[in-house]
């Protein structure tokens, strides 16, 4: 009747043991084929598959949608369709517009739902079922870190999309993971001097922080760079991601004695919290004899669009803005605009660059093998992708480039022209030693 009968006899134990042994031995039949390839998901046909894992639902869905548009555009350009975009301005000329290593680029997509579990499940699907050779995406640092460690364990390259927490290339860095986007450390270093000039020294600061790795990282960086000139933290309150209504968190700000509110929020959360803060009349108040100010450390044009009039005069930092006038940015804005009818966001920009950088590294390395491809990206110097001369540092797989400090425009000339670049902070000012944030890259994993 069953494998184990009561009372337990020697025979029934043997029988159960044998059945268990068979169950344990079965997997080798399936894994043995994996050993024939030089690395996981080695493309053998005429195509190569990339996996685009972005949030299509949840608080970062707007960014995710824009990221997906950028990925599709990058794939077109790599395959030689369209006008080529930033391929024409990119200083590395390895890509010829005929795919990568003669293989046409195809892609699969997945929805991260801005949840680590869902993101890892969809990344696994792309690796195990669709044979994706590289995973890229993000829009939440928690998700990016979770997927990055998954890619390390599985043995594919992870090209981080929009993820701004220090931890992604700090204490949670992985050899198979690379990030083009900047981090909170750079935001702090770039934003603090501007804040000091605009708002003065000796301020009382109230932080509202998204309660996950990015929020903590952002809060820490702002404190680190503003405390030297006398900005004291009155309180730092953690808010859940996707809270929707922030009024219960904003009410205590009024009576806290603080004269600066830092909103460490992103995406729809930032749109909601900033709009509500302005509705509460915080910006019209005088506290401690000073004008009450609001700072949003990480800004994006998509969020500015969502927040409407509330963003006028608000300071923040951004990786890239479509209004930049260099050749690369203009080429990108032009081809994105022609295809979709509106300018790209910073999320779109970083995802487009990451795809190009990956394809270029594969072309230069002559293989998609993670260890060889990674070596081609390490200490790679390039220009023409919209941020000036950029370095992919070998020590932590983090890109170093200029950071933009921006302000919400008072008189926007169009519905997209919402951010005014206050300062382009040069790369030298935001650089830091590779071992400052801790963490170990470890060795590359080729997945075999």
């Amino acid at each position, binding site marked *: *009747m*069953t*494998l184990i009968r009561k009372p337990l006899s020697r025979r029934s134990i043997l029988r159960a043991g044998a059945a*268990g042994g068979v*169950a*344990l031995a*079965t*997997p080798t039949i*399936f*894994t043995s084929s994996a050993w024939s390839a030089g690395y996981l998901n080695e493309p053998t046909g005429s195509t190569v598959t990339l996996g685009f894992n972005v949030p*299509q*639902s949840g608080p970062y869905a707007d960014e995710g949608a824009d990221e997906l548009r950028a990925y599709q555009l990058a794939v077109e350009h790599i395959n030689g369709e369209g006008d080529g975009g930033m391929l024409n301005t990119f200083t590395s000329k390895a890509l010829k517009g005929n795919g990568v290593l003669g293989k046409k680029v195809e892609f*699969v*997509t*997945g*929805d991260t739902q801005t*949840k*680590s*579990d869902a993101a*890892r*499940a*969809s990344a*696994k*699907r792309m690796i*195990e*079922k669709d044979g994706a050779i590289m995973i890229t995406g993000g829009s939440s640092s*928690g998700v990016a*870190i*979770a997927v990055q*460690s*998954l890619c*390390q*364990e*599985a043995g594919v390259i992870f090209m981080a999309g929009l993820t701004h927490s220090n931890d992604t290339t700090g204490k949670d860095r992985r050899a198979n993971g690379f990030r083009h986007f900047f981090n909170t450390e750079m935001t702090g270093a770039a934003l603090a001097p501007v804040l000091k000039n605009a708002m003065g020294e000796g301020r009382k600061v109230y932080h509202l922080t*998204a*309660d*996950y*790795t990015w929020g903590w990282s952002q809060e820490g960086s702002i404190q680190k760079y503003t405390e030297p000139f006398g900005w004291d933290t009155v309180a730092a309150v*953690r808010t*859940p*991601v996707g809270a929707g209504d922030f009024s219960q968190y904003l009410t205590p700000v009024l009576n806290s004695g603080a004269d600066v509110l830092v909103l460490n929020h992103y995406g729809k959360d930032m749109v909601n919290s900033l709009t509500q803060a302005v509705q509460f009349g915080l910006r019209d108040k005088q506290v401690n004899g000073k004008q009450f100010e609001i700072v949003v450390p990480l800004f994006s044009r998509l969020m500015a669009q969502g927040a409407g009039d509330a963003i006028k005069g608000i300071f923040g930092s951004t990786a890239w803005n479509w209004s930049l006038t260099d050749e690369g940015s203009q080429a990108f804005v032009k081809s994105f605009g022609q295809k979709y009818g509106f300018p790209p966001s910073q999320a779109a920009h970083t995802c487009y660059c990451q795809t190009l950088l990956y394809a270029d590294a594969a072309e230069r390395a002559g293989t998609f093998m993670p260890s060889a491809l990674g070596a081609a990206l390490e200490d790679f110097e390039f220009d023409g992708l919209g941020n000036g001369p950029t370095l992919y540092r070998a020590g932590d797989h983090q890109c170093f480039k200029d950071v933009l400090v921006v302000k919400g425009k008072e008189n926007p000339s169009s519905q997209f022209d919402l951010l005014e670049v206050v300062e382009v902070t040069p790369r030298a000012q935001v650089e830091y030693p590779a071992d400052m944030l801790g963490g*170990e890259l470890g060795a590359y*994993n080729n997945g075999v």
Partner: protein
Amino acid sequence: MTSNPTPTRDLAVFVIFAAAVLTMPIWLAPIGAAYPDLLQKFAIYGLFATGFNLLFGLTGYLSFGHAAFLGVGSYTAVWGFKLLGMNPVPAAAMAIVTSGLFAWLIGYVSLRRSGIYFSILTLAFAQMSYNLAYSVLTPITNGETGLRVLQSDPRIFDTAAQSGGPLVSTLFGIEMSGYPGFYFCATFLILGFLVAQRIFRSPFGTMLRAVKSNQNRMNYTGLNPRPYTLAVFVISGMYAGLAGALLCITDPLAGAERMQWTASGEVVLMTILGGVGTLLGPILGAGIIKYFENIFSAFNEHILQDIFSFLPEALQGPVVSISGLFVGEGWHLTLGVLFMIIVILLPGGIMEGVGRITSMVKGGSRKKHQHQTAPAE
């Protein structure tokens, strides 16, 4: 199947079930579901739903907070990895014990009420656990970021070779990801099924059915139903804890979103979709929901265009854009439609459909078919 259970018949069902589970990588390949991660999910959520069905299917107590036990199991398993090492067996054992204790606590309070009040109480406890994991207990749960195993964790039973290696669970040198992970989970699913089958046929199971059919009558005969319901609540919680541990064994990460009420709702859907009170139903339901979540959500316009490429150009555009609403991020819509159709036409879930088809094949002359357990309210 429900009409006349005999030991031989049970054995046959069990053997066929075990064979079907172990050969899933082969027969699921044509529908694109035969890849390790999804197979693992099938096995794990099948186990979760089986455990849930023991409570809901037998006693009729609708717990709306079962995800809490899944979450507790997950966190315990990851802590097991962090402290003891990457062997899945102690982690799973710890998870079963902790979630069992947790279920006993919640069950002790919640089972004082029945019907909707019981559901609301369990829901409240689960939401409470979720919010605690999300905020107050951040040092234990690592909040939104999720709890992971780090290279710097003590892992006292790990050998030097393991401690430098990749952070995946290993059982005697076999990494618990990919197909080995699936077979590990499948073994537990088969064992879980066996235990559930035994409970269904035992006097204990009969007592639980008595609770469902008429608790008052049971009280009048001098029987106290609470020890029985509490026992099955704890067993059910242990199933969920084991499922949570398996989630972490195949992928060592635990996040608070596993405890959210949507996750609790999902297991209710799985059970109802498959058939409440049947042995196989909940497992089928779990498979269908996970299949939709993973496969339908991945369809994008390109794939749809490939599928409908046989249509004439003029028709292809509208068909693709209409069907596009039901795939990708719209997979919930498809699931909702399917759920409505099943609940309206087959209140007993898919298993009722299977039963109707078999009786039709057999000539439809069986008159004892009304005997099926009524779906619980």
